[in-house]
């Protein structure tokens, strides 16, 4: 009897994050990409507005890369200073 083992290489979470950054950042309302939990293979996408097509497109990408994506709608993050120009 012959045993045949097949290995599927799972890329590291940092590599997946880098790949997600290259693929999605600055497109389709994705303004941020980070790691939520490396062991659980969860990454975060920060969105300026909620966008269904982004969720669908990136979730299909996520399943190919064996990660889960947390979508967080943050609007437009701003520098946290006060000045004399209305802030």
């Amino acid at each position, binding site marked *: 009897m012959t045993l045949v083992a097949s290995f599927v290489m799972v890329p590291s979470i*940092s590599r997946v*994050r880098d790949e997600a*950054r290259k693929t999605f*950042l*600055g497109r389709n309302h994705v*303004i*941020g*990409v*980070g*790691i*939520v*939990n*490396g062991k659980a293979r969860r990454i*975060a996408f*920060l969105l300026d507005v909620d966008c269904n097509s982004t969720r669908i497109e990136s979730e299909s990408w996520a399943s190919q890369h064996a990660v889960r994506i947390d979508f*967080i*709608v*943050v*609007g*437009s*993050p*701003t*520098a*946290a*200073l*006060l*000045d*004399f*120009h209305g*802030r």
Partner: protein
Amino acid sequence: MSDPGGRIESADIEHAKRALMGVALGRRPRRTRMMHRTATQEQNRSFRVLRENLLGVGVSKNEPGADTLNVLVRKEIGKEVVYSYLDRFGMQNFPVEITVAGSTRAAAQGGQSVGHYTGPTGTISCAVQNENGERFLLGSSHVMAASNRGKIGVDPIWHPGPRDGGTASHRIGILSDFTKIAFGCQIANRFDAALCRPDTLAHATPGLLHLGEVASATAAFPQTKVRKVGRESGLTAGHIIITNLTTIIRYPNGLDALFDGMFAAVGDKGDFAKTGDSGALIVDEKNRAIGLLVGVSDNGLSFGTELGPTLDHLGVELM
């Protein structure tokens, strides 16, 4: 509550003392049934003046022998500042005495207001030193260097910052160094930090307001419990939810800047940080420094850059 003649009930004194000591401890007044109205701009200014100066509150007797609220402050403030703050709680007619105790705490310390003389106002991170033992104050580049407009060795830094009533007489030092922010999203930034060379050592006292001594720098990890002291939101607690974050931050000049290696935190009760907290040092439960606050979002996320690489880049260390 209190009659116009100035006699006050002991329960009212305790109430007023609690309200004022909350300020000294860095707590924002919460909306309660006792809070009669929302704060006006003037009352918010009074809150900040009190927070910068209040050392303690006690009760003493005035000449007719009536109880008087005795407010111990670092620098002279007008009674109207106290009245304006207490007015939020419906307490206007207390007899108040102001006692100036001088500087029993840091003249300029992490967590307090700081600004570039042209207007940008934020928070002092902490005191740092270089290899020659020269002392500096660390803060945000977009505050102390006015988003790349600052002139090293020339521009005065004020404490408190201009938005908190700071003027030329509040100068504490000059801009000594800063990391330039790359706007547009072609180049990723890793730092948003600046150094102020203090005019006197008292203008760069180590440690953080309310939290004390800061331990060594450490990295940001998910779910790490964190705290910070900011000039706007005071002392708050929260935890980190995202690390290795690449994101876009919008600056007051309307330009976006891309940041790499950030982390994001949320508050345990309400927002972890607010506009005006830029530069605040983010520490873990053991006061180990994790990062500098850079930005906030409308939904309550706070964004920071890691402190370790920032210190290395500026050639300084914690003290």
